[in-house]
């Protein structure tokens, strides 16, 4: 029983990270129908920037968090302005390849700037452990879960009540109509990239205490991608649900059948989902007829 609870908590916190990265995928997909394969790398950059602020510059943790989110968001904005805006109207495959190339470049640059040695992000809650009976839970894991819930609520309020949030919804539903109504679609798209990079940074900051940070942690972006598809591409709650599903299944498979099957379970779930229900758990997009 305790093991199950422990695994469940670990799975949920891992799943939250996947969900957060998936959220970034879905945001960009909804706004521009582009798939950003470099989302995992943006998370990695966010984590490394946070390390720079807290470890090298010795800033206050909370100041560092805010600045990291802003800085990563700014990187997202720059990427959109300099690169992705040129790709509007190109076939989806070309855009996908551009973001794959971008992932390579970001990973290589991160390796050059921060090196390939594992780094550690020290947080005020790093070593704290809470025990409930026989179950020991790292506070880091709880912070991941809490942070995800808070972010989801914030995003919900943002999309529901702010002008820019509603404008983003409008332009993702119908770009042309939004444009006619006077919504600055280009600026909205740029803002979406910034937002999505910011979310990736939050995912990075939350994920960092759970693991050692190397330029290669961006690869968990692929699992997050599986999460986005399992949840139903194009659905924000779906991304989180898919992330949780993958995180939990992964932990249990790993515990019962070893690391090999644990690592691949995300891909098995992805394949199964694509074969059985390609639109995902929460279907939101319909196929065009002709």
């Amino acid at each position, binding site marked *: 029983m305790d093991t199950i609870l422990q695994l469940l908590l670990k799975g949920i916190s891992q799943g939250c990270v996947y969900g957060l990265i998936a959220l970034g995928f879905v945001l960009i997909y909804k706004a521009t129908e582009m798939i950003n394969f470099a989302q995992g790398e943006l998370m990695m950059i966010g984590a490394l920037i946070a390390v720079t602020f807290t470890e090298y510059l010795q800033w206050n943790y909370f100041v560092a968090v805010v600045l990291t989110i802003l800085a990563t968001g700014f990187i997202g904005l720059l990427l959109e302005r300099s690169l992705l805006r040129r790709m509007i109207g190109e076939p989806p495959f*070309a855009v996908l390849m551009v973001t*794959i190339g971008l992932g*390579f470049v970001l990973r290589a640059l991160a390796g050059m700037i921060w090196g390939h040695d594992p780094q550690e992000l020290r947080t005020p809650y790093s070593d704290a452990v809470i025990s409930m009976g026989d179950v020991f839970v790292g506070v880091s894991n709880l912070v991941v879960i809490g942070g995800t819930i808070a972010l989801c609520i914030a995003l919900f309020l943002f999309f529901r009540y702010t002008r820019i949030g509603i404008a983003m919804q409008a332009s993702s539903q119908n770009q042309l109509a939004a444009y006619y109504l006077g919504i600055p679609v280009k600026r909205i798209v740029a803002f979406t990239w910034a937002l999505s990079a910011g979310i990736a940074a939050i995912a990075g900051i939350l994920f960092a205490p759970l693991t050692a940070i190397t330029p290669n942690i961006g690869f968990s972006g692929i699992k997050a991608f599986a999460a986005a598809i399992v949840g139903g591409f194009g659905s924000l709650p779906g991304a989180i649900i898919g992330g949780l599903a993958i995180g939990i299944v992964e932990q249990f498979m790993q515990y019962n059948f070893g690391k090999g099957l644990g690592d691949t379970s995300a*891909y098995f779930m992805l394949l199964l989902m694509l074969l059985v229900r390609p639109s995902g758990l929460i279907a939101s997009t319909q196929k065009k007829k002709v």
Partner: protein
Amino acid sequence: MRFVLKTNYGRDIDIFKHRAHASWYFVLIAALLLAPLVLDVFYEKQLTELFIWAIAGAGLMLLTGYSGLVSLGHVAFMALGAYIHAILYSRGWPLFLSIPTSALITGGIGVLIGVASLRMTGIYLAIATLAFAMIVEKVIAHWPALTGGHSGFRVDDPAMFGYSLDSSTAYYYTCLTALVLVFFGVINLLRSPTGRSFIAVRDSEISAQAMGVNLLQTKTLAFALSAGLTGLAGALYAHRIGFLFPDAFTIMTSIMLLMLVVVGGLGSLHGVIFGAFFITIVPQIIAIARDWLPTGIAQSGGLEPLVFGGVLILFLVFEPLGIYGRWVKIRLFFSQFPLYRKKTFLRQKSYLKTERVH
């Protein structure tokens, strides 16, 4: 400018458009046949590698460039081809049987993916193949009884009819023969009704269906052929590296293959050769450039991905038709010399190509 007088419809699908066209290819083949006489062993090995990449690239080009199906997991077929061949060969199968068998089995696995691909489009298919590749990689790593797992699998030296093909020259000719056969086959396939139905499916599935193309059959065949060719390349690659281990076939190789077809030029077989040339020569250029760069940059392992990723982005943004597209432009510039206009190749952009219903 050259004007080709076509006197019958068959001329439209001729392999060679005119005499001069054909003679250039004979010069190329002759040069490749004579190359081992003058070349160093190092360059011979590099060319062999180029041939193997070109075979795998032809497989992926058939799928991505001609049928419009994107696969991010082609390395899986390469790995399967390599391992199946190595295992059969180590159990005493002759080379001329085990290589085609491995290509056939890989093609058969491609059929399964092809059937599944009918349900998925575009990005979803790309991701599904990526997942497939991840799973294959793990299976190879965690099945030591058959594949040797992480400790690797030694590939026996190639030999056929009692002759050893182990020397770099002999293997050069083996791979060259395979490449020429593959290209001849693919060129012929592409000018047949089957190949043209691939292209029709790529350009518009709905209009292809309306013209009577069977989608399931076409897509499955495209996947099977593509997987088979990539498996063949994998089998040849097994002897090239001599020792198989799971890390030789990672997702990176898949991306390299995609890079090959994109940088070379999507939808052209010339592009395959240009692309193969590109991905064999760039690591060499980087190795030379390391001596000139400041040590901090030169020593970091990220130089190669950085260059590959950067070049890929530059090509997609500035020359989506790849090296072949650039070559076509240069050729037209000279053949129309003072009259060349840049706008000839102006691409039409749509505001947003959507797959959603509004």
